[in-house]
């Protein structure tokens, strides 16, 4: 007898809203919102442009969200390290306004040591997953931090569908390589394309998400559209943007910043106030919008969810 076992994260296809319908609905709602603003407040279009209009609705709230006040949308979307669009923090917001090119399909390849590899169109990739709001602390290796309301789903859900085999010890992520769309890639500041990696248990941790939005909106180009990783207990550069490939591998993957400076950046890069970057202290951070610095917390405050993964590791060596 053939028994169909329902995989985790699967739901009957009858319950899935067609993504095109979903998109149309969002476009409609956006149109209504803009029209409403324009009629009621003709003089304040400038503020309408900066206020986030939610495009994802009915997002599931998450128990992993922090209760801290999110950093203003304006700061989250104007102060970005995204070297594919220049090394200035203000340049991604200026240069990524049209990114990604809507006329080109965004494909994501899932391959390597897994039984269910695939090459997906962005819409097909995210269709099976329930989107949640995750308000996370975000700590940059440079010593500043934000509180960001992401929209996304657990990476674990996607991994379960890909069915990694027993040789899959790490997950490697790759950013798009397209110097035409990403002017920063025309200069060899980093070894393009940007790559990142997680150990399998880190990738499966419920805190780790793939994000497709911020503030209830689709990700702006400068924040890593259309899909990026968010690993809140690690320094920001681990949260790779604009992903085109997710690969299961046996060996520890070479990652962009480790290649750029192996003495300064480690594979793990867990937020750790006790292990300084060779050129600056990591004991404190400036929360964007704050005047003075605050103490940095171990694992960025997520110890209870992640500390168990590192119990037998010397975190000074494995920085």
């Amino acid at each position, binding site marked *: 007898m053939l028994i169909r076992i329902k995989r985790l994260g699967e739901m009957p296809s009858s319950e899935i809203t067609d993504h095109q319908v979903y998109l149309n609905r969002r476009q409609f709602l956006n149109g209504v919102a803009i029209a409403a603003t324009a009629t009621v407040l003709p003089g304040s279009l400038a503020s309408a442009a900066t206020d986030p209009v939610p495009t994802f609705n009915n997002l599931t709230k998450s128990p992993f969200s922090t209760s801290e006040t999110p*950093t203003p949308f*304006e*700061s989250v979307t*104007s*102060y970005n390290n995204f*070297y594919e669009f220049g*090394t200035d*923090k*203000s340049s991604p917001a200026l240069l990524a306004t049209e990114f990604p090119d809507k006329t080109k399909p965004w494909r994501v390849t899932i391959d390597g040591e897994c039984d269910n590899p695939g090459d997906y169109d962005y819409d097909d990739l995210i269709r099976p997953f329930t989107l949640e709001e995750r308000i996370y602390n975000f700590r940059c290796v*440079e010593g*500043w931090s934000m509180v960001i309301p992401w929209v996304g789903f657990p990476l674990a859900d996607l991994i379960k569908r890909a069915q990694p085999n027993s040789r899959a010890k790490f997950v490697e992520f790759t950013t798009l390589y397209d110097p035409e769309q990403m002017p920063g890639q025309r*200069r060899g*500041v*980093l070894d393009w394309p940007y790559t990142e990696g997680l150990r399998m248990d880190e990738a499966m941790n419920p805190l780790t998400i793939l994000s497709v939005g911020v503030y209830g909106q689709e990700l702006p180009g400068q924040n890593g559209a259309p899909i990026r990783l968010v690993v809140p207990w690690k320094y920001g550069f681990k949260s790779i943007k604009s992903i085109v490939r997710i690969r299961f591998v046996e060996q520890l993957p070479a990652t962009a910043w480790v290649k*750029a*400076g192996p003495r300064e950046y480690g594979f793990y890069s867990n937020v750790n106030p006790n292990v*300084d970057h*060779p*050129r*600056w*202290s990591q004991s404190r951070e*400036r929360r*964007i*919008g704050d*005047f*003075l*610095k605050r103490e940095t917390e171990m694992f960025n405050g997520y110890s209870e969810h992640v500390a168990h993964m590192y119990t037998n590791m010397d975190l000074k060596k494995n920085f």
Partner: protein
Amino acid sequence: MKVKQLKVVVFITSFVPIFLLIGGLLTNQLGANPIETLTRETGLWALRFLLLTLTVTPLKWLTGWNVLVTIRRMLGLYVFFYALLHMLLYLWLDQFFDVDEILKDIIKRPFITIGFFTFTALIPLVVTSNNAMVKRLGGKRWKKLHQLTYLIAIASSIHFYMLVKQDKTEPLLYAGLLALLLGMRLYQWYLKSASMVSPRNSFSRL
């Protein structure tokens, strides 16, 4: 009269960067991390004024405008002005005047060590910048002391180079300008010594 006008123009122009920064701060134009912007910009302006100070003499050689020398001291004092702001922003907003933390930082992190040294080295130059001190020290000794500027300029360029995370283009640009300005001096010095003693001797002196 001409000299005085030049001095007034330079005096006012040199305040423009700080006015723009304060204006930007008050109108919320300095980005999401205004403190970082202020710290970076005051440091950069200190370096820019330092390079301007070092441009005076070569420019005088090239143009013969001796009047330029009269603004050099003012430019030098602006180096200190912007460096002082840069330093205070670090001590106050980065470290909140926590002496322990500051000392640890100076010992542990080479770029802070160099930055701190650079700032400290500016102090004797500021103190001896007035005419009375030039007289008291005597021209030769005063000149010798103020050659410390070269070391300060080299150290600030290293400080800038070391603190930049990955893209070293900007610090290399400033370092290149400094190399040019110092290179012109070396060349001039070579020409001078070559004309005073025999070529063979001057070569060995290099």
